[in-house]
């Protein structure tokens, strides 16, 4: 019923996927946990301990040159136990016009990740936002404190267990809003 359109550059993406997959497998071996193509992005899941080295390798590699950090964000999958928290980095090679996604999963017990600010200065606020929303601790970050929410907030609001609304408001009755 839903026909996925063949991406215009599907050969290019397959070629890129093979190139990066081979390079990562050679250099990092067992740390490369999963590799697939999602729509038009090669996605590589690496183990948390290797994520900083993988990013550094991809940034500095002379052939692939993924020197631009497009974005990074976190996500929360509460039912997944060991893989509860996900961190995603999207890299872009401006010279070769190629994009990939690097993902890593971790449990709530070891939610510490080395920072990417030594590779890209732009990761500074991206990591602060991810910390603010989910509570990831970025080791080595120059100024890891909340950026968008109030400093006094004592929980990480985008985790799935917290509600969207402010529980203490009294002028909007939840049953009128279908909640």
């Amino acid at each position, binding site marked *: 019923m839903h026909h996925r359109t063949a991406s215009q550059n599907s050969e290019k993406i397959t070629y890129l996927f093979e190139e990066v997959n081979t390079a990562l497998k050679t250099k990092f071996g067992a740390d490369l946990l999963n590799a697939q193509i999602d729509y038009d992005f090669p996605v590589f899941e690496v183990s948390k301990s290797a994520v900083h080295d993988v990013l550094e390798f991809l940034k500095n590699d002379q052939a692939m040159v993924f020197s631009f950090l497009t974005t990074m964000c976190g996500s929360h999958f509460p039912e997944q136990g060991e893989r509860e928290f996900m961190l995603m980095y999207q890299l872009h090679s401006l010279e070769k016009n190629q994009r990939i996604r690097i993902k890593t999963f971790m449990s709530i017990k070891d939610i510490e990740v080395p920072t990417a600010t030594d590779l890209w200065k732009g990761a500074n606020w991206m990591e602060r936002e991810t910390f603010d929303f989910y509570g990831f601790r970025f080791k080595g970050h120059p100024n890891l404190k909340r950026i*968008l*929410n*109030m400093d006094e907030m004592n929980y990480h*609001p985008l985790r799935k267990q*917290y*509600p*969207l*609304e*402010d529980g203490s*408001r009294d*002028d*909007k009755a939840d049953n009128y*809003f279908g909640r």
Partner: protein
Amino acid sequence: MSNKVVIRPENKPEGYEGEGYMLTRLDKVVGLARANSLWPLPFATSCCGIEFMATMAANYDLARFGMERMSFSPRQADLLMVMGTISKKMGPILRQVYEQMAEPKWVLSMGACASSGGIFDTYSVLQGIDRIIPVDVYIPGCPPRPEQVLDGILKIQELAKNEGIGYRQSAEYKARLAQYGIE
């Protein structure tokens, strides 16, 4: 041919007129002067601020209502126009700006977000500025059209015109402020 110029002012207060003088009540004259020379403080935070800029621009000119000069310093402003979403982080700042204004002062809440939180019923948005400061006129809309903004400003002008002189020292006004915890 006489050089007499006949001026027919609209909304002239009632009173006794003669050659070169007019006898009327002081509070009517003060009200007239206040209403037509309000200095607004555009507290523009988001999208409503852009519609306010469109209201200020040449098409829906705000200057014809006496608001030529925007005052960004609260000490010199009469009308606090809160335009846009106020988050809980911004609340204390809004309150401080309000307290820095000198009497008489009016507050206009423009847009759905300032009036009641708008579509952002979230943990970080203040659900209406009337939780922290007293508001005189609410303008609904997301964002309100410039015509609606002008309508709201005309209502403020009506309030200013009919307020009277002693209102700000009265017990009723002090009780209203006390509701918000403002001395």
